[in-house]
């Protein structure tokens, strides 16, 4: 828009507005920059003086130490597997459930929808769910992280809304050609629903990747731990492995090294999402918008 459209007062307001947004951007970026620079610092300098922009104080020691231990890499691989399997299952179940519920002529559609929606507001809670998982023999197994969360009512509502918006003529034409609903679903509807499937997949993937609580209660075997649990050991519980810190270091040095390892760990583990996210941003935005459609 032309600047001449604005009065003098408005132009002042716009300047203040830019300052405010600039301030917010700086507030957002500073912690991230700080962590990144700190992860390259010499451990003694970091603990005593904080970060510096003098390359003489920089090392890659933190990263070498983090990779000296397998736990991060193993957590990474576990998390990739869990997130991928979980997202595929979620999308599949969501699509299968949402398509029939998008048909107005389906007998019992209202009650079936109610059956799902109730679970958004009422639930058994943490303890009964834990006991169920335990009784099913799913403790310390991959299934505990992948299966129970695969059904999500929000996703169903979103996908159902999407299917409702697709032209009816397509499935009608296919019915006349003698295709049954299963064929219509897999051959016509799913390909049309690719955009929404991708959005749901991304959300499920990020959600699973970033969560730790279910893994904390269900998974005890260190070999099965997802990345977030490994991170929790290092960052929150202050338990970096001996391989990282080194066995024969003095107390004071250990403290410095532990600090450095934490910064390096944060950078390594959040880098993939932060780097990938700009490429997927439009899909994430879309997810928020479709999600806002009332079901």
């Amino acid at each position, binding site marked *: 828009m032309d600047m001449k459209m604005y009065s003098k007062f408005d132009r002042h307001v716009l300047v203040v507005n830019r300052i405010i947004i600039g301030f917010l951007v700086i507030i957002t970026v500073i*912690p991230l920059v700080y962590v990144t620079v700190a992860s390259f610092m010499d451990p003694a300098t970091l603990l005593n003086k904080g970060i510096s922009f003098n390359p003489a104080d920089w090392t890659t020691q933190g990263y070498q130490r983090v990779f000296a231990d397998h736990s991060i890499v193993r957590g990474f691989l576990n998390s990739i597997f869990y997130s991928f399997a979980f997202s595929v299952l979620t999308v599949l179940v969501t699509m299968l459930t949402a398509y029939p519920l998008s048909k107005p*002529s*389906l007998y019992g559609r209202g009650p079936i929808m109610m059956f799902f929606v109730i679970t958004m507001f009422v639930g058994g809670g943490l303890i009964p*769910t834990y006991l169920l998982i335990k009784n099913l023999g799913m403790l310390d197994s991959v299934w505990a992280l992948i299966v129970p969360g695969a059904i999500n009512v929000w996703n169903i509502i979103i996908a159902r809304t999407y299917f409702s918006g697709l032209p009816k003529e397509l499935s009608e034409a296919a019915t006349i050609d003698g295709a049954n609903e299963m064929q219509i679903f897999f051959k016509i509807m799913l390909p049309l629903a690719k955009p929404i499937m991708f959005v749901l997949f991304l959300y499920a993937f990020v959600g699973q990747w970033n969560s730790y609580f279910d893994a904390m209660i269900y998974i005890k075997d260190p070999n099965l731990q997802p990345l977030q649990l490994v991170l929790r050991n290092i*960052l929150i519980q202050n338990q970096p492995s001996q391989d990282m810190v080194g066995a024969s270091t003095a107390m004071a040095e250990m403290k410095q090294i532990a600090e450095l390892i934490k910064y390096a760990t944060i950078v390594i583990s959040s880098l993939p999402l932060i780097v990938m996210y700009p490429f997927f*941003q439009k899909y994430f935005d879309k997810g928020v918008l479709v999600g806002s459609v009332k079901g």
Partner: protein
Amino acid sequence: MEKVYHTTSAAATTVPRIAKKRRDKALWDRLKRDRWLYVMLLPGILLTLVFKYIPMYGAIIAFKNYNPLLGILRSPWVGWAHFQEFIFSPNFTTLLLNTFKLSAYGLLLGFLPPIILALSLNQIMNKKIRQKLQLILYAPNFISVVIIVGMLFLFLSANGPINGIVTKLTGKPIMFMSNPGYFRTIYILSGIWQGMGWASILYTATLAGVSTDLYEAANMDGANIFEKIWHIDLPALKPVMVINFVLAAGNIMNVGYEKAYLMQTSMNIPSSEIISTYVYKIGLQSGDYAYSAAVGLFNMIINVVLLLFVNNVVKKLNDGQGL
């Protein structure tokens, strides 16, 4: 005369019967026609039955003296004993207030920033610049809660960067993470830092949909930016604001325990222990399943009541429009 009477009475009974038969046949045909649709629904229904409804049934252990060896069914009933125990326990008020305050303050402080940010971004006319700014402002949303809390511990530790500044100013560091007085502030401010940008997406999108005619008309009338925000932007945002507020207020007892649990230290427990972290500790760490299930159930009931209450209040204020 009698004959006529007969035929009508026969007709009166057979017609509904035929109609019912026809309806049954029609229903059967519909079910048969849609059989594949029902097959598709099966996995979702099964998963929901097993992982959502069985735990609801399992919640009856809240009214029992649960013994794992006897199982849920055969464990003896104790009625409301666990609930009474919780309500009369010394930490009941603290837990309830901690949960409520953490959530309510979070809602009060966190509700406006995304709206202000959206209004602010909306004033930036250059689309490319605006998108770049959004890209940066949304990024923290993708950082996991474990890393966020890890960063909090690093930044706020005695020799961390924040205390570097504090020590220069006052001479001694502040123990942020072990002082119960700071817990809620840290929790809420870091939550706003992480979530403000992301929460603004919906508002930004709503503003993008406002017709430019309205702004042009306002320009004709000589309205300034604030007048345009007040008379055009805010009314456009109102429905989204209402929905967000109802959802947040209805979820007030469901405050994010994942983050609260990670932020807990033995020193800040007086303000950081909330009902859900307490349930986890009593239930899964100490193994008192029945009592902690009762506490969890108590929390959920409050939450449902709150949701209904808030929805009703908003309905009254918002011309009958709730959720």
